[in-house]
């Protein structure tokens, strides 16, 4: 084909099973597959796999060795049959028939799983490339050999023809058909990252188990953490279990400590301890602190991200403390002011930070009447407090009246939603 500057589309199903002839006309076998090297936007199908009925294993040859595709047969260049080699599939390579045709792939444009009915190939500059994937009914009909009669019938009945459903290859993420080859394919699972975590979660729910874990393992820590929180709770456990312990603890560490704790509390004890053991020290201590509290109490749902300062400190100190943290907004809406022995004395709000003088003492500005809950209080009682006072967050105290954490509006909504 080299040398011909024509552009031409063809379907993989039309290529499959065509007889392959040497330049002298000797029959070498039939086309059995195409090997594609992934990586480019429209990857090159550089190798044709052919098979004879008498062959034990398929053999392959370079696409450049093909003289013509005309008529019903693939004709090779002179001497090309001597270049036939055994088939080897490298790490970033897939076989169109073996790994793509009839298999499930992720359509990252439509954010859903589709089944591949056919593959649309483009010959340009003498090279064969994958251009589109056919998800539509036309692909099925073409492969059944019914396309022509049904098109004729459709045209007679409705006019026009059944619509194509082609997706550009750049939106197609192939999945592993063989669980054991997952690790290899992980290199190529990059396109999953184009999706929003909640879409990834939907897709993971629809996948079979082997692909579920390989897709999950391919996600970076951030995305994995977000995806995990979006996924059906019944799957969360099996997903986190498939990740390596190191990765699993990294994923948990990129969550809020209270969310991470929720996950850990669900795991079997042994697994939980391994995961906690591999966490960084400060995070580990906070999670372990949270795990001490009984399920269904304020302590078990609180977050330990909050700002507390002594009453002798100034507004300037508070602004500095506010700058130093990256906590979500609702956890820093209030700054807790402590007195003697770390006991809670009062609260200042973001408004104070903005409106009051930098040198003013927190103790003088604070509102000493703080509505609080205790670590042992039931979640229902905490919900009542939120209902009554409409706060963004409520501090959680231990029996010494020191602040152990806070419960935000989001925490309480989540906790009560789970109970429903």
């Amino acid at each position, binding site marked *: 084909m080299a040398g011909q500057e024509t552009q031409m589309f063809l379907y993989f199903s039309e290529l499959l099973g065509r007889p392959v002839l040497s330049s002298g006309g000797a029959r070498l076998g039939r086309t059995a597959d195409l090997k594609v090297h992934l990586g480019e936007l429209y990857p090159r199908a550089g190798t044709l796999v052919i098979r004879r009925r008498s062959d034990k294993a398929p053999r392959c040859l370079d696409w450049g060795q093909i003289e013509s595709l005309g008529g019903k047969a693939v004709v090779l260049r002179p001497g090309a049959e001597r270049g036939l080699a055994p088939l080897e599939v490298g790490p970033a390579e897939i076989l169109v028939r073996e790994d793509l*045709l*009839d*298999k*499930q792939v992720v359509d990252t444009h439509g954010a*859903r799983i*589709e*089944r*591949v*009915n056919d593959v649309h190939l483009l010959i340009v500059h003498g090279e064969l490339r994958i251009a589109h994937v056919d*998800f539509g009914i036309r692909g*099925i009909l073409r*492969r*059944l050999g019914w396309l022509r009669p049904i098109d004729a019938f459709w045209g007679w009945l409705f006019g026009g023809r059944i619509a194509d459903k082609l997706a550009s290859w750049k939106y197609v993420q192939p999945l592993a*058909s*063989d*669980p*054991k080859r997952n690790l290899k394919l992980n290199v190529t699972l990059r396109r999953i990252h184009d999706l929003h975590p909640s879409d990834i979660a939907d897709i993971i729910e629809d996948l*079979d*188990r*082997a692909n*579920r874990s390989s897709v999950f393992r391919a996600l970076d820590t951030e995305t994995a953490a977000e995806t995990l929180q979006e996924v059906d709770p*019944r*799957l969360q456990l*099996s997903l986190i279990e498939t990740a390596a312990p190191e990765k699993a603890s990294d994923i948990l560490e990129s969550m809020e400590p209270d969310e991470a704790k929720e996950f850990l509390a669900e795991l079997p004890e042994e697994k939980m301890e391994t995961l906690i053991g591999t966490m960084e020290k400060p995070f580990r201590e906070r999670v372990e602190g949270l795990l001490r509290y009984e399920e269904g109490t304020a302590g078990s749902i609180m977050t330990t991200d909050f700002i507390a300062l002594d009453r002798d400190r100034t507004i300037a100190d508070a602004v500095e403390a506010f700058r130093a943290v990256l906590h979500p907004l609702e956890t820093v809406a209030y700054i807790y002011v402590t007195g003697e022995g770390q006991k809670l004395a009062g609260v200042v709000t973001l408004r104070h930070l903005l409106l009051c003088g930098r040198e003013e003492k927190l103790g003088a500005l604070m509102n000493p009447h703080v509505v609080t809950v205790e670590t042992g209080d039931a979640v229902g009682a905490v919900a009542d407090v939120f209902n009554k006072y409409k706060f963004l967050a409520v501090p959680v105290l231990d029996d010494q009246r020191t602040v152990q954490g806070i419960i935000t509006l989001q925490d309480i909504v989540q906790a009560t939603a789970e109970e429903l």
Partner: protein
Amino acid sequence: MIKDVLGRRWKSFLIFLAVMGPGIITSNVDNDAGGIATYSMAGAHFGNGLLWTLLPVMLVLIVVQEMSARMGVVTGKGLSDLIRERFGVRLTVYLLLGILLTNFGNIIAEFAGVASSLEVFHVSKFVSVPLSALLVWLLVVKGTYRSVEKIFLFACLFYVTYIVSGFLAKPDWGVIGTSLVRPSLDFSPGALGMVIGLVGTTIAPWMQFYLQASIVEKNIPVRDYKHARLDVIVGSVIVTVVAGFIVLTCAATLFKAGIRVETAADAALALKPLAGRYCAALFAFGLLNASLFAASILPLSTAFIICEGMGWENGLNKRFSEAPQFYGLYTLLVFAGAGIILLPRIPLFRVMLVSQVVNGLVLPVVLVFMLILINSPKLMGEHRNGKVFNAVAWVTVAVLVVLTAAYALAFVG
């Protein structure tokens, strides 16, 4: 120490309760209108003579269903999914067409069962059939997999009616015991035909698909596989016990009186003067339950199988707009199946004939595909069939194929 063991037992029991469902439901649906008719005929025409054949039938059921359950647990994929990926679109489409055809025939038979069982209670089919179709449709379209499964499991409980009616018929338990221990071998063409019928109604292609799909939907992990296997075994045993009671009820009453029946509703009516009103009513109610149950599952399973193989969105947790083909096909099967029953002078026998012949063609293909898939190291790894089990499975499949073909031929002849 003892507390530990008890604790582990209890935990294991709880896991079983969570895993339980697919196997028990699939097996029970097997006792549908057609199955009950066959068992009634076996009892009425041959007494307790063929009772023993139910034991090998149970083994066959266990062997075949265990493989479906195992494939579902290990691969996490449905059977039509696996067939499509392994054997390509061409075979898949023709196979699915065959399954669609034979299942549609069975769906019609189920609605016929609903109609005739309620006619025993003097309810017109023009009331019972549309109402039951609507009920079945709403149940699935408005429900989620979990709620639907609970209702289905509850429906399984009603098969107890057959056991109760068995006791009401006051059979001679001594005779039943001996006929099980010392099987009488009857090689008359009539008896052979009946045995073929018993086996033929037992294994249908849709069961393997449905079982595997519901195991996948439940996301049962490999470590809980032994519970899924127990679920299959319990289901097969329950089915056999229920079938046995139907046979012995009819043997104790109809066979003694020399009454011949052709349908399950015939049997219920004939039971009235012989075994009393309650026995007959329970028998008819059991038929109603079985028919309704199968009428909900068959269309559902058919829609599942086809959408999965074709790559269309499916599942009860999807909305109508997300899975139009799935819900469209389901709706069509339910209402077309029910509608045909309301037509005057339906050729029910011809419908069943086509359905059985197609069944006989499709079943061998499905079973052989299953054996190929379950022996694939790529797919099943260490969970593929062992040598001994494989030999048992191939022999089972061979016997099944021969008997099903004979059953289909008997229908034609």
